């Protein structure tokens, strides 16, 4: 489905990605983990056309999409939820959602989907006409996640959806991702909430120093003592994370 071949790239003169290669199959969830600053978000930017790639290739369904613009990527069925806060501050919640489906040809369908996601995140309906900037941090994140679900994507790139979400909503988001995967959508996710994320994923990917260190079934990574020691807070095989 998605394949990265030996990607090098970075910001200005600094090379951050030093040969990232991996491929993920269709209809799977892959979680990327790694220390802060490893380059996880940078990989997502590289895929989505937001980074100058010095060398290497990004293949989507076998076709070379290296250097495509974000608009082209959306056209090919890829959506992206970046890290941090990404709402349009002065537009209402509803209009923010509407923007999520701006590229769709069938606006009627978008409207229906908006109703669906508002059922899923009732807060959105409650605050439908408030400016997005007025929402709390977690509410804004809900809005963003909901917005990414409005199109019918083939591939979702989602960068740390759990930041700021309350535990029950993290579960809700993860459940939604699982349902999507079951419908055939491919999901590539970064999570620091790594133990619960890996627990629901098919594959795990460890990134360090801008290089892929490990790529394996999620369960195997969870069980790997070195991974636990280095990236999962040192409590290998300990009690499962709350939430």
């Amino acid at each position, binding site marked *: 489905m998605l394949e990265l071949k030996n990607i090098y790239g970075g*910001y200005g003169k600094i090379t951050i990605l030093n040969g990232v290669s991996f491929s993920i199959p269709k209809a799977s969830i892959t979680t990327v983990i790694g220390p*802060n*600053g490893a380059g996880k978000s940078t990989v997502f930017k590289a895929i989505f056309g937001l980074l100058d790639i010095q060398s290497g290739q990004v293949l989507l369904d076998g076709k070379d999409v290296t250097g495509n613009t974000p608009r082209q990527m959306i056209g090919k069925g890829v959506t992206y939820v970046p890290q941090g806060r990404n709402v349009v501050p002065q537009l209402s919640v509803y209009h923010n959602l509407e923007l999520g489906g701006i590229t769709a040809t069938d606006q009627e369908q978008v409207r229906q989907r908006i109703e669906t996601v508002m059922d899923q995140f009732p807060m959105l309906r409650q605050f439908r006409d408030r400016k997005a900037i007025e929402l*709390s941090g*977690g509410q804004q994140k809900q809005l963003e996640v909901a917005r990414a679900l409005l199109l019918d994507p083939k591939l979702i790139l989602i960068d740390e959806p759990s930041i700021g*979400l309350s535990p029950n909503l993290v579960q809700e988001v993860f459940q939604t991702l699982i349902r999507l995967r079951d419908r055939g959508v491919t999901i590539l996710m970064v999570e620091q909430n790594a133990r619960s994320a890996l627990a629901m994923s098919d594959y795990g990917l460890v990134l360090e120093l801008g290089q892929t260190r490990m790529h394996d079934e999620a369960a195997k990574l969870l069980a790997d003592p070195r991974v636990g020691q280095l990236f999962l807070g*040192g409590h290998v095989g300990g009690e499962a*994370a709350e939430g």
Partner: protein
Amino acid sequence: MNAPVLSVRNIRKSFGGITAVNGVSFDVHKGEILGLIGPNGSGKSTLFNCILGQLPPDGGDVAVNGRNVSGMRASDLNKLGVGRTFQQLSVFPKMSVLDNIILAGQEHHGSMLSRLFGPGDAGLTAEAEKLIAFFRLTHLRDTLAGSLSYGQQKLVDAAMAFMAGPSLVLLDEPAGGVNLTMLTGLKDRLAAYNAEHGTTFVVIEHNMEFVMSLCTRIIVLAEGSIIAEGTPEEIRANQTVIDAYLGG
């Protein structure tokens, strides 16, 4: 008995029809690590902003060490030893990591004038470097803080909170985006600091593992009001909290 380090009485705040904080009162005593949790939009950040002078509350009082500080500006509160972090990333993007951290401490050293005529770093470089090393950012010491990754900025933010040697720190989601290993370090550091200096912490966090293992007492907020209060064990077992927040 000593006055509580922080005493919040009946704070209320609403935004055009929405009541964000609805009469919240609680005390925090010296040396406590208090957790503040609750669903998204329950008013936690707003409460912090009201306590710390970033937002004027509609009503209620705040006292620090027995002294009424309602309406006091954030910078003055900070000089009383009250530090905080923000939920959003809030480093100074076009300043180096080192400068960010020195800045967090400099206003506590000497008078305004002595800061003009004294040394350029107010004598804080060594202390700042220790913190940078602890958070594994040494290689980024002279990098502009704005070009760090999300988690790294979060760490710089946390480091700044330690810089002034405060007696009370309010942390708004310090763990979000921080790698689990680093998070363990942060937690240990907070606990050690608390034990060593008797510093009091109030922590908003959605990461339950972090909250439960760090905090001595937890307050749960929902729709602007306190719905539960107790030890981590009590909270974990509280059905109302599970329904409103933790989920099944």
